[in-house]
């Protein structure tokens, strides 16, 4: 087992990039799962659009009640009346609606002059429509009361209008019985595993392959009393153990970070199967790159291009739902697309019915097929190369 032993000696040389990749992955996974919004699904909750109200009209009764009314339906974020910071806030969607109440608004309103509130929003956006509805409703109701109501004072008139607005339509939630876990942190973790598996496994396997494929070393190995088949087999065992090890570390990471939510979900075997298949795909790609690439700088380039490219196009970093249709139809030719699709299906699994499970296995099988094709291509190409080498001799 000399080759096998040497395998891990060579691997030690790539320890630093491997650890860096693992570190980056864990950092990203923890950060993103910390910021991912957790949607509660038991009861209906109306969207609390973040809005900023800039009041240039002073503390009149009307304006105060209006702001209080908005505060019941939306999340009021207070911002100073400063153009630059308001623009920043809208650009980064800290607020989705800026309502500027102009000076003299209340007086104009009371004297039925139809003043307007200046809104600064993403033009024609959903949230802009949503907030408009409430603003118009509030002022129209107050107007009706001021025109036809018989309230003794302005305070009572506004109070009567607000009382009329106090309606809460009954909303029933139809859930599938199990909360949708697409937003569970572990679902994100497993999705990012695609990047980590690609980066780590390709780095490790291709580094070893580059060393073994070095022309002089390769020729020396061919003189050795070990058969080519034997060397190949030992290398293959090395590749498999290394890929399994990477996969094992990532699985262990998920148990440590999310074990409490993950174990009761019963989804571990499915996630494990999916990530393991993708690890095999990554090993295939590592094998292919190792056969092509000659030096470490070209290797670094290739790894980055492939790992980032596959992750972005497959929907690892940006959810597939957000991506455009034409891109997705091209992405179907990438194993990462099927990995993420399977991952989403597992996360959204509502019941372990044969047809849902069947579709998940189908997606995993497609990845396995990719792995098979990649291995076959690599072997065919490497056979051609050895042929050339024997020609040289």
């Amino acid at each position, binding site marked *: 087992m000399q080759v096998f032993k040497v395998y891990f000696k060579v691997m030690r040389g790539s320890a630093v990039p491997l650890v860096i990749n693992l570190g980056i992955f864990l950092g990203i996974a923890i950060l*993103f799962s910390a910021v991912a919004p957790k949607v509660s699904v038991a009861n209906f909750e109306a969207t609390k659009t973040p809005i900023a109200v800039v009041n240039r009209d002073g503390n009149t009764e009307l304006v105060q009640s209006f702001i209080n009314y908005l505060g019941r339906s939306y999340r009021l974020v207070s911002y100073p009346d400063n153009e630059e910071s308001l623009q920043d806030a809208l650009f980064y969607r*800290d607020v989705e609606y800026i309502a500027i109440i102009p000076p003299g608004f209340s007086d104009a309103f009371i004297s039925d002059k139809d003043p307007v509130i200046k809104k600064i929003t993403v033009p024609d956006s959903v949230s802009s429509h949503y907030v408009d509805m409430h603003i118009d409703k509030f002022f129209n109701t107050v107007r009706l009361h001021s025109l036809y109501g018989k309230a003794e004072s302005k305070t009572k008139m506004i109070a009567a209008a607000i009382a009329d607005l106090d309606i809460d339509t009954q909303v029933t939630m139809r859930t599938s019985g199990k909360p949708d876990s697409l937003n569970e942190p572990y679902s994100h973790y497993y999705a990012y595993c695609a990047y980590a598996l690609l980066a780590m496994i390709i780095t490790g396997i291709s580094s070893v392959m580059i060393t073994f494929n070095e022309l002089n070393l390769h020729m020396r190995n061919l003189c050795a009393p070990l058969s080519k088949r034997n060397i190949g087999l030992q290398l293959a065992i090395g590749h498999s153990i290394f890929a399994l090890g990477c996969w094992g570390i990532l699985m262990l990471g998920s148990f440590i970070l999310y074990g409490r939510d993950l174990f009761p979900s019963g989804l571990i075997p499915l996630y494990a199967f999916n990530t393991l298949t993708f690890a095999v795909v990554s090993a295939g790609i590592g094998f292919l790159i190792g056969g092509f690439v000659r030096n470490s700088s070209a290797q670094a380039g290739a790894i980055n291009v492939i790992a980032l490219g596959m992750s972005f196009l497959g929907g690892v970093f940006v959810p597939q739902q957000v991506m455009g249709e034409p891109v997705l139809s091209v992405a179907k030719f990438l194993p990462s697309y099927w990995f993420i699709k399977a991952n989403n299906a597992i996360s959204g699994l509502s019941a372990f019915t044969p047809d849902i499970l069947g579709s998940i296995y189908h997606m995993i099988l497609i990845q396995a097929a990719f792995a098979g094709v990649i291995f076959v291509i690599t072997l065919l190409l490497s056979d051609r190369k050895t042929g050339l080498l024997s020609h040289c001799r």
Partner: protein
Amino acid sequence: MFWHVFLYRFKCLFRDKETVFWTLIFPILLATLFYLAFGHLTIEKEKFNPIVAAVVNNGAYQGNIPFKRMMESLSEEGDSQVLTLILTNKEEAEALLKEGAVSGVITVSDTIGLTVKESGINQSILKAILDDYGQTAKVITSILSENPEAAAFFFEELGNQRNYTEQASFSGAAPETNVAYFYALIAMACMYSAFWGLRNIIDIQPDLSATGARRSLAPTHKIKVILADGLAALSISFAEIVILLVFLRLVLGISFGDCFRFILLTCFIGCIAGVSFGNFIGTVIRGNESLKNGILIGASMAMSFLAGLMWVDMKNIVSSKAPVLSYINPAALISDAFYSLYIFDTHKRFFINIALLCVISTVMYAVSFTRLRGEKYASI
């Protein structure tokens, strides 16, 4: 002599395929991936489209004329269409809801109810519409009970709903959040100019490379060599950034605002900051080339991360939670300069960014120069 050194340095750097890959091809590739993954348009995705809802077509719905009228007017085709209604029976409606074809199911009985599958903005709007109906009914009862004579004019006024909002904007630029990813990407590319700066330092210091040792023996004045090298690095990196910019603008269609000369100025100052950062790392960090390279990659990635490359909100979070960090991070300053050009009509914030970048670059150049100047070698 100066131009001679410059020309050969330029050729040397230009033929360094590996660095050309990382400083030019890699950013272009990453930009393409960004573009394919999430596009550059934020607004298109937030656009309001009529909400598809199912209404259970029962006797109660057909009997509730005012509600039916309201639903019909909201689903009238045109610019102000809010709903797309599907009239169907209860089972069908539930099935549509289950498969996600409708956002909600409206059921009229004694009361009006909404059934949804998830909480979201479309569902919230549906609820607001139903609330609106209930509120109007309540207004009618409360006003008419107080003032029955008003009935004659009241209903006419009720149909005459007014709009109390008016769209305004601070500047002509649309708040397309995703363009910030591409600004952060240019910032990253500028910081990658540091690879050229670092190569220059390695090729001029006798203890770091054979080339450095040979060049130190040459009778050319060192300051001339340093300046010529620096100019060569700057020319290459500026050319690369301009290529990237042209690619982003013309191929991907990313908007940068209209101030063309200021955009170029930002690129130029960004390259200076990048190259000076490479010089700084090369002279201040003691160790071999791979260590310096590692630190350079790590530092530029960290700076780009804080400038919003991986997560666009990061830049805003840093500037609100730890403003100092965004004033000393060249990548954040570069991407903020682009952002300011894009979104603001005034250039105050832009020039603050540029001024800070100049200060940071000057400090880094000064430190590296004093380090280089004082070098004496007992043995190499």
